[in-house]
């Protein structure tokens, strides 16, 4: 019994299912520069209401794979360029690189399993609900007059002419030159105004004026001259959001632009499709909780992604027999925009088979898109599943919430929420 409690989650199946009602209990109580984060498919998302057609789980997973493919391509391309420049590539890797299929579209896919955060821009401020993305850098929003094209969004478009603090950025400015690294594209110039363009891996894009205006995170956290994209031509998988907030590492990301006050320190909690009370908080005003375990970033890899070192994984208290070198060879990033964790193929196969051994009492169900270990739990109200924990460099062990182990598509199709990459290290 003690073993069961230590290594298994016993839970009501309903705790894994989406809720239809939004009942935040701590809204507004968190200190510091804190904003509410909602799951775009959850009950607290206004973007998920008012007759909007909800994405199916299959659609969400298909878009998720598009995002993962484009992340893989972006990292591979950058490494490929680095190898070419430094000419240090081994013959083994040279052969592998020759097989790389470079993406038709640069950048990463947006995906649709997104989280949303609301910020204010302009004077007076306009609230804008933006996709929350640690995998990209530039913050942008759709702007009037939408010279070329805008997709439908829930809130009114930002109107620069209604903001007394708005200004376009000059083509000759250093900030304009910085768009190359923030977006992957060279900036343009129109009547001395800097033009940005960002294209994502699924062909979604935003193009418009690179501008600056007042950014309001909270009434006491206000930043003059925040640089962002004022989109005049925008299309893609952005749902009904007003754009995107870039939380990656480039000098033009919101993390870098607010560094003077927040010292490049932020934290968040992503709520489940059932839960509420998610947050994005800038700064370390209240001091880090002593219970936080830290693992070092590996930030020298030429992209703005956040790389971490996974050393091992345990399932049901059993450490999987995986060499740490397997993870090290592939590398791992943490990303708020990817839905399902991707593991090196060998690691996933090991995790899957161990998980299945602990779940033999439950009847299987058909695969759900890229998820290949699914169960029909229609006849159960309570289930017991093995705990899964990740061991990161720095002796950091992270036990996943049950919602991080299983993804439900109704009680008849409850799936292990992991997937494998096609290859261990390419």
């Amino acid at each position, binding site marked *: 019994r003690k073993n069961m409690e230590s290594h298994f989650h016993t839970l009501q199946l309903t705790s894994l299912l989406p809720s239809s009602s939004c009942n935040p209990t*701590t809204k507004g109580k968190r200190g510091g520069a804190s904003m509410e984060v909602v799951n775009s498919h959850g009950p607290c998302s206004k973007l998920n209401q008012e007759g909007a057609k909800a994405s199916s789980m299959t659609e969400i997973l298909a878009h*998720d794979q598009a995002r993962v493919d484009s*992340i*893989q391509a972006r*990292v591979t391309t950058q490494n490929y360029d680095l190898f070419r420049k430094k000419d240090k590539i081994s013959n083994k890797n040279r052969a592998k690189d020759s097989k790389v299929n470079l993406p038709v579209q640069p950048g990463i896919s947006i995906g649709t*399993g997104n*989280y949303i955060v609301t910020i204010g821009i302009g004077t007076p401020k306009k609230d804008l609900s933006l996709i929350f993305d640690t995998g990209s850098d530039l913050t942008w929003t759709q702007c009037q007059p939408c010279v070329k094209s805008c997709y439908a969004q829930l809130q009114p478009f930002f109107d620069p002419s209604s903001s007394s603090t708005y200004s376009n950025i000059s083509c000759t400015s250093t900030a304009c030159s910085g768009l190359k690294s923030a977006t992957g594209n060279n900036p343009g110039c129109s009547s001395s105004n800097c033009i940005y363009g960002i294209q994502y891996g699924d062909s979604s894009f935003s193009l418009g004026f690179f501008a600056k205006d007042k950014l309001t995170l909270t009434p006491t956290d206000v930043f003059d001259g925040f640089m962002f994209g004022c989109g005049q031509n925008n299309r893609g998988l952005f749902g009904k959001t007003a754009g995107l907030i870039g*939380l990656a*590492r480039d000098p033009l990301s919101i*993390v870098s632009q607010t560094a003077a006050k927040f010292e*490049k*320190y*932020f*934290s*968040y*909690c*992503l709520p*489940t499709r059932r*839960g*509420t*009370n*998610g*947050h994005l908080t800038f700064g370390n005003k209240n001091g*880090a909780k002593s*219970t*936080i*375990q*830290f*693992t*070092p*970033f590996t*930030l020298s890899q030429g992209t703005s992604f*956040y790389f*971490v070192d*996974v050393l091992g994984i345990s399932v049901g208290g059993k450490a999987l027999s995986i060499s740490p070198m397997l993870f090290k060879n*592939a*590398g*791992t*990033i*943490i*990303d*708020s925009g*990817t*839905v*399902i*964790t*991707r*593991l090196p193929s060998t*690691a996933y196969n090991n995790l899957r088979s161990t998980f299945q051994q602990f779940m033999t009492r439950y009847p299987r169900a058909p695969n759900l898109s890229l998820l290949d270990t699914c169960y029909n739990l229609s006849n159960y109200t309570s289930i017991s599943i093995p705990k899964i924990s*990740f061991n*990161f460099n*720095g002796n950091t062990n*992270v036990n*996943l*919430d049950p*919602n*991080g182990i299983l*993804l439900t598509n109704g009680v008849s199709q409850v799936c292990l*929420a992991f997937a494998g*990459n096609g290859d261990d290290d390419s």
Partner: protein
Amino acid sequence: IGIFGNVQQQTLEIVYDVAGEKLGFGYGGCS
């Protein structure tokens, strides 16, 4: 590369100390 996705991040407190070059994990971040 492997990717630690947002389903697995749910309910955890995820701390980015970019200047300190470290990532933190805590529990009960949404409560």
